[in-house]
């Protein structure tokens, strides 16, 4: 019942932060995205990967695979930052 009420209220642009299920879920999602797609964190991982390779703790193959994955993550992180996913526009005009 709470969920239905919540969704209905949301359609009219009425939200009660903290009690609103969608708002709460969005906060969790945004936090997870920030953690996953923090460009600075990904850049640090790229540098660490390079350093461990140079120190002989990784094979060339391991280094290249991890580096390609991290560069892809960096691209997504930059895109995420540009898109600013925390702003959502409702079709009924509520934000």
């Amino acid at each position, binding site marked *: 019942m709470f969920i239905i009420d919540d969704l209905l209220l949301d359609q009219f642009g009425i939200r009660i932060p903290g009690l609103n299920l969608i708002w709460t879920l969005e906060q969790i999602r945004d936090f997870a995205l920030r953690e996953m797609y923090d460009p600075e964190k990904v850049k640090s991982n790229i*540098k660490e990967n390079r350093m461990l390779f140079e*120190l002989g703790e990784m094979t060339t193959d391991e280094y290249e695979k991890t580096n390609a994955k991290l*560069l892809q993550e960096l691209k997504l992180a930059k895109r995420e930052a540009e898109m600013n996913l925390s702003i959502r526009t409702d079709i009924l005009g509520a934000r």
Partner: protein
Amino acid sequence: MSEDTGNNKERGIYVYCMIKAPAQKKSFGNMGFGGEDVYTLEYRDFAPVVSTAAVKNYEVNDDEVELHRKVVEHVMKEHDVIPVAYGMAFKNKKLLLFAMSAGYKAMRKAMSEVTNKVELGVKVLLPKEDASWDGKEKCKSDFMEALKNKSAQSKELKLFSDRLVMNAAFLVDRDKIEDFSDEMGKLENKYANLKIQYSGPWPPYNFVDIQILSKRKGGFR
């Protein structure tokens, strides 16, 4: 070349670094992007080292960053350099020279600081098996204190890994590199339990930070 987000037919001038203007225009060979000739232009007593290249967003890509780095390192064998950030391409010579006129004072100051000097890098990190060693602070101050005495300037850099105890760059006179290396040898012996990465000589990337025509860090610098 990496993904092109602009007009891929547009050609411009890519800048690798700045040097003091040589007596006459100089070519460093076909080592630029796309095998283009790397050569000098002239602005007052400075010479930007450039090649013809696409005007686009240069994305971080191992091969291209490496190419930029190799050109700058090649040039620094014979010249003092002010490194320019990766990815700086100008639509034409006029715009490049305009940027240089805007940054002329800063470039002169930077050049006076790096003349006859190179950058050396030191990273100290914990071995894989012993991430909880408790001598980190003492170790870091030992390294910094000893190496500051052998350098003109030093800069502590970000500890980008949990295993890093110290990450620093040092600006060292070309003729004092051996002194610095001797000191490093002593420290390596003292801290034989740690992994140490001593690298260089590099262009003075961490000691020149000129930003022109860009509010964003990483612009023309």
